[in-house]
């Protein structure tokens, strides 16, 4: 206790010098905290989003730069039925346009077949999904969320109601045959928005048969260059590989590397690999900064020991043991780095707060990070304090007392 008190007094004695000494530690710890908070926030947010669509399909892409070959909707269906590890496959065609109900909203029509339902985590609250016949015949039917129904029709009781969709200058009337369940809160917000109060702007998505888009709206003909395969649980990799092989065989593209797999798992992989590299680079910078900071602490402590030679002599004459002097200076150096660590943590949180203003996800500050900072900064102080403290402790009291 006395050591801590005296270390603190000694640091306050020389505020400017102590602060400059701490600077390296402050920068190092600050960057560690920032990268940890941003990284954790990013992982948490993206991880959450990915989890939500994790059960979704794996996208198989035919690279338009390497080949002009493509599949038709029925070929996609055939491939899906041939893959033993999957429920099936569905073309994925998306069109953007205006959806006209009570008001005109912009939104998107997502074209697929009846297998698309396997890619949904949402459950149907009302009505049904479109069937195979509807999927292949260009039926003008659609499935949307309860929240979207409130926005378009003013009610969740929307099965059987129709709205107009305008895509590329053409307008079709689409009948709602099913509704996905939305959370109570989302529905409430939609009602609020409807009454013109503060509410959440919701982007509306409607699932429709792909043939409605390719034939009904005459979009891009029947050329399908990407489709989704819906694997059984835990069979993602096998399903994706089989689907790619079948696609290559069907199009005669073997060995041309023109068909690629884009699963969410592999996206997450790529993402976390990038994040890990960024983390590594920042950690490296932080480590160098901490090393330089630690050497700075050692330097200043050595100067301080020399300056206080006489004090050390006095303390030894009065009965301080080697260990007492050692502990006194170690307490001082680790106090410097600990305070530096806390200042760095505050700086890091400030920086994180600013960074989060420019990003769409909240940073996450974990208690374990704080503990990490305390441990790291204290041990830097202890480690780099050993040499000067040892010098102090080993001084000869007679020579130290004679020092001017």
């Amino acid at each position, binding site marked *: 206790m006395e050591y801590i008190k005296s270390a603190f007094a000694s640091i306050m004695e020389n505020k400017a010098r102590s602060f400059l000494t701490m600077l390296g530690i402050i920068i190092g710890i600050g960057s560690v905290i920032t990268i940890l908070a941003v990284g954790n926030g990013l992982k948490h947010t993206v991880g959450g989003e990915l989890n939500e669509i994790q059960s979704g399909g794996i996208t198989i892409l035919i690279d338009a730069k390497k080949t002009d070959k493509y599949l038709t909707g029925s070929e996609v269906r055939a491939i899906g039925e041939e893959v033993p590890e999957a429920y099936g496959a569905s073309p994925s065609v998306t069109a953007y346009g205006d959806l006209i109900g009570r008001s005109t909203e912009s939104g998107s029509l997502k074209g697929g077949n009846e297998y698309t339902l396997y890619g949904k985590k949402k459950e149907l609250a009302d009505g049904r999904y479109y069937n195979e016949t509807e999927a292949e015949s260009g039926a003008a039917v659609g499935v949307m969320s309860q929240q979207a129904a409130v926005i378009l029709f003013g009610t969740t009781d929307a099965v059987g109601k129709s709205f107009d969709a305008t895509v590329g200058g053409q307008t079709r009337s689409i009948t709602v045959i099913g509704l996905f369940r939305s959370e109570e809160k989302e529905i409430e917000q939609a009602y609020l928005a409807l009454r013109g109060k503060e509410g959440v702007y919701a982007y509306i998505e409607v699932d429709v048969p792909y043939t409605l888009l390719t034939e009904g709206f005459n979009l891009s003909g029947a050329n399908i260059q990407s489709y989704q395969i819906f694997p059984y649980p835990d069979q993602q990799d096998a399903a994706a590989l089989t689907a790619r092989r079948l696609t290559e065989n069907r199009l005669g593209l073997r060995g041309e590397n023109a068909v690629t797999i884009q699963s969410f798992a592999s996206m997450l992989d790529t993402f976390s690999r990038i994040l890990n590299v960024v983390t590594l680079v920042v950690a490296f910078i932080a480590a160098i900064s901490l090393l330089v900071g630690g050497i700075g602490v050692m330097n200043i402590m050595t100067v301080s020991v020399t300056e206080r030679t006489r004090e050390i*002599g006095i303390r030894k*004459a009065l009965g301080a043991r080697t260990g007492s002097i050692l502990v006194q200076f170690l307490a001082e150096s680790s106090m410097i780095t600990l305070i530096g660590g806390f200042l760095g943590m505050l700086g890091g949180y400030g920086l994180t707060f600013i960074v989060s203003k420019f990003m769409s996800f909240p940073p996450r500050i974990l208690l374990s990070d704080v503990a990490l900072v305390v441990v790291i900064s204290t041990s830097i102080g202890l480690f780099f304090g050993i040499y000067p403290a040892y010098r102090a402790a080993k001084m000869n009291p*007679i020579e130290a007392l004679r020092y001017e």
Partner: protein
Amino acid sequence: MQMMCRRQPDGQLRREEKQEMARLVDVIDVSKIYNPGENEVRALDHVSLSIDAGEFVAIIGQSGSGKSTLMNMLGCLDVPTSGTYMLHGMDVSHMSDNEQSDVRNREIGFIFQGFNLIQSLTAQENVELPLIYRGVPRKQREQLSVKALQQVGLANRMDHRPTEMSGGQQQRVAIARAIAQAPPILLADEPTGNLDSASSREIIEIIKRLHKEGRTVILITHDPGIAEQAPRIVTISDGRIRSDIKNPKAG
């Protein structure tokens, strides 16, 4: 002679017991040699000196006479090259650094020429330092330090730092520090060397009073005027004791 004592453990034991009863300080045939070899310096040359509890001894000598070396030896800051130093019945001539630290803390109160207060601490904190190293609990430390500062008449300066005090006041803080935990020996090294004559008298009076209260005082000086205040005067030159006389004028 030392070797002989070692070979006769019984004899040595009896000797130690006897010392413990009367002799506080017993320096037996001590030499200190710096730079052994061609350019060796004999700072102390076969010095023997005994001091009993309750004595007030002045050790006087010119600079270079070996009195500083003797003072370092008596204060357990240094160990002799040969010979034995018995302090309070303990052989302190072959102790490790840490053991010496403990002996200094327990047995000796230092008063230096240059005061040697720690500048960043208040008067009271300075007085508490040896108590901290002794492991005295905080409450008791405060009581002892206040008492010691009262004894030197500085009860109203407890929270002042050394830079805010005169030389005489600083030396009185140093005396308070030396007596706070009531060590058997007060070792004063030129205590008035940095002071004007008024402050010097004041300090000498305090030292004499402490002696009258029963403390053993060893005063090291080059100034005969100061040495005359002590009832026993030991003169040292060229590393040898030249005279050791009673001084009836003291008192």
